[in-house]
């Protein structure tokens, strides 16, 4: 008797805990535990897999070295030395006056210790050196680029205002982003994918951009475009600009960016603030270039190119450019969150509209209900009272799966619902095995009590065995599956474990209760 009451305590404890975990899902904010998470396929939203193009980050670093070496050479008056990018990853330094090599080498040792000499070839009257970054430095830059990209994207999404986004690194250079409930996926994509490199460059006034488009640009400058959509005709308007290569100021010195509304034209613009160093640079360049045009370039697109009227102190500037309010708002967000250290590429995108998600939930639940009711009716007809016991076990099974989902903070997906449905079909299996066995034992003339004992005893190992194989398959799926499929693995595993508990412990207890405690003489099976 004592043994049975302990089992009862255990069973009751399990179900109390299960109810505690499931309640918040049925009645939100009723309990301090959280609800069952719904996957993107059920609540709608966007899943993105991005690749950070880390090679570009290395390239940018090398490019910066190239510029800095060029400036140093100029400053030191070493006129016979030229620096160019050899390919994306290497620098080529050509020294045509051999007497200058020693000075150059000394300078390099002092200022650019990070660079590695790959080769040095000497001709009759010139030396060519190829320089690059050591491998550790390259991999450090790459790791840093991914870390920064992750941080920046996280910032941007936080400011965009998505509830419960999931942003994580995958492998070495991928970022997985889950944005539940996002409806304006285009905007979100634009916001995440924008590199947001802000540059200020002078307009080269010596040539007409229309001419430059055909005949090519002068050395030291390049062709850029201003691109905007004409809302009336829905056409793209591209205006060419010839800008100097030299970047005078970048967005790295930004401290803030805000949307403002121009009182005169009632148009939104983005006002930006520089830190003290940026403000000094801005003051200097505006002071030196009065009456010239300064172009504001974001990701190689010209936003505006106003004429500098006077020296601007205070470190404040404005970016205008025919924005809608949302565009201006998003621009301010990306500028505030900072630039991505390298461009990102979208490798995978899955977007589910909220109505489809709701449909999936409805269809999933309908199938579950119909399948469940059919199994219930069948079990009741086939095994009578014992069938009712099995059905009770089944209901509690579903309760346990739901509790497991919320206890482990797992995500319920459409395949996950399929997993629960499958569990309904397969969980009765354990009871079927036991009941068939009990019938066999009754057929050879055992009393109900002895038959139940023998039935459970002989079936237990078989049931354990049979379920282990499904569990193995489910666990492997969990390990290798992604997103929705993982949800399936979770519910299937939970279902298997729950059905072991309900069939081997719960139904056994119920049978024992009626046959031993209440001394029923007949078994309806």
């Amino acid at each position: 008797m004592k043994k049975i009451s302990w089992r009862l305590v255990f069973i009751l404890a399990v179900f109390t805990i299960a109810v505690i975990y499931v309640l918040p899902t049925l009645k939100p904010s009723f309990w301090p535990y959280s609800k069952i998470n719904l996957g993107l396929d059920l609540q709608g939203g966007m899943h993105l897999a991005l690749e950070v193009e880390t090679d570009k980050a290395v390239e940018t670093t090398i490019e910066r070295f190239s510029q800095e070496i060029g400036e140093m050479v100029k400053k030191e008056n070493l006129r016979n030395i030229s620096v160019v990018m050899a390919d994306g990853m290497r620098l080529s330094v050509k020294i045509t006056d051999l007497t200058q090599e020693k000075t150059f080498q000394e300078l390099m040792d002092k200022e650019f210790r990070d660079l590695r000499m790959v080769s040095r070839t000497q001709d009759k009257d010139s030396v060519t050196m190829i320089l690059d970054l050591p491998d550790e430095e390259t991999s450090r830059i790459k790791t840093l680029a991914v870390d920064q990209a992750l941080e920046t994207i996280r910032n941007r999404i936080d400011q965009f205002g998505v509830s419960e986004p999931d942003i994580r690194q995958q492998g070495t250079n991928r970022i997985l982003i889950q944005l539940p409930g996002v409806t304006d996926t285009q905007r979100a994509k634009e916001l995440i994918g924008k590199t947001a490199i802000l540059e200020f460059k002078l307009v080269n006034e010596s040539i007409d951009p229309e001419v430059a488009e055909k005949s090519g640009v002068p050395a030291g400058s390049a062709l850029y475009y201003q691109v905007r959509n004409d809302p009336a005709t829905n056409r793209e308007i591209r205006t060419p600009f010839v800008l100097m290569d030299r970047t005078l100021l970048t967005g790295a010195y930004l401290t803030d960016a805000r949307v403002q509304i121009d009182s005169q034209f009632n148009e939104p613009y983005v006002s930006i603030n520089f830190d003290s160093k940026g403000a000094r640079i801005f003051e200097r360049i505006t002071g030196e270039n009065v009456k010239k045009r300064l172009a504001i370039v974001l990701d190689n697109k010209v936003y505006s190119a106003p004429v500098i009227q006077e020296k601007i102190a205070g470190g404040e500037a404005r970016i205008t450019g025919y924005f809608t309010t949302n565009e201006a708002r998003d621009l301010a967000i990306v500028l505030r969150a900072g630039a991505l250290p390298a461009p990102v590429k979208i490798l995978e995108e899955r977007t589910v509209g909220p109505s489809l998600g709701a449909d999936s939930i409805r269809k999933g639940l309908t199938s579950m209900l119909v399948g469940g009711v059919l199994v219930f009716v069948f079990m009741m007809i086939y095994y009578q009272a014992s069938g009712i016991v099995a059905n009770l076990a089944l209901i509690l099974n579903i309760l346990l799966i739901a509790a497991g989902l919320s206890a482990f903070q797992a995500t319920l997906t459409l395949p996950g619902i399929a997993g629960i449905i499958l569990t309904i079909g397969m969980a009765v299996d354990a009871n079927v095995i036991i009941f068939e066995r009990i019938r066999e034992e009754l057929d050879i003339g055992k009393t109900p009590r002895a038959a139940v004992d023998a039935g459970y005893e002989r079936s237990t190992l078989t049931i354990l065995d049979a379920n282990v194989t499904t569990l193995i398959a489910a666990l492997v799926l969990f390990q290798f599956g992604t997103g929705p499929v993982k949800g399936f693995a979770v519910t299937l595993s939970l279902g298997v474990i729950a059905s072991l508990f309900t069939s081997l412990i719960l139904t056994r207890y119920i049978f024992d209760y009626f046959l031993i405690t209440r001394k029923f003489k007949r078994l309806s099976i």
Partner: protein
Amino acid sequence: MRFIKPDINIDFTGKRKIAYFISGCLIILSILSVIVHGGPRYGIDFAGGSLIQVDFPSPVSIGDIKNGLSSVNLEKASVQRFGEKEDNEYLIRTDISEAYHEDFSTQLQASLKTATNTEVEIRRIEMVGPQVGKDLREKALFAMFFALLFITIYISGRFELKWLLSGVMAAALIGAVYLLSIFEVSIPYLILAALIVTLILFWFLELKYAMGAIVALIHDVVVTVGIFSVLNIEFSLPVIAALLTIIGYSLNDTIIVFDRIRENLRKHHRKPLEFILNRSINETLARTILTALTTLTVVVALLILGGGIIRDFALAMTIGVIIGTYSSIYVASPILLAWNVRKKKP
């Protein structure tokens, strides 16, 4: 109530030649179909590409949709009805696997609206790049491989109660696979090689129950894949999940029959093996059929009511449950018999 009388005695093993013939035909047809179709048909999860699900309030013609697509440079896309007929949903597939530019969905919606003259809702967009597709393909195959490996170890240990032997098996299997992976053999061949090594090991170590279970399992997966190939259904991530579940389910059935065989071997050790096999299958027949019925009930409910997204998964499960039930009766046990006949001859 009982469908199956307790004294039922059907001569299953007597008809094993017919079963061999049917199974042989099914497997050959499956393999042929896969070959004719040039390998399994991968969905966008594995092949890369994109898929757009659109919904219209009233029926539209596929031609109109295609016209709308050509104005956004998707004239090569295939358009297919999706889900129930009254839903007016269509699936657009293309092999484009680059991110769509930001205005894409607005433009697509506008041009579909003009072309079909009705409102349109874009319900789902999925784009999988070639690199991700390749990764997912690899992951799926690894999942199949590891499931097979663990299950092999489990059944060789559990059925024969020779855990030490199963450890040896596992080591041999991993060794063989490692050796092959040094030569950069592609994963499908790796799995094939692992299977062959497994079967050879079972044969030499005389693990006949494990052999029967594994053969039944391969049978089920091959035939399910074959039927998918014949019906020209795509392999997607959920279908792979279904295949793995079928492996678990089919083994489940086999284990129950085998457990009974072992029990009966102890009980009637003087009777011929064929008698014991038949008796065991008959004794567990009620359970086999009942479980198959309840499982089939729910997966068919899912197939009919679950909607388009889960349909392929439900279909794979339905086929798998039927094949798995058949194989645990007609394939797994007769293998034991065939083994015995063969081993006694020399």
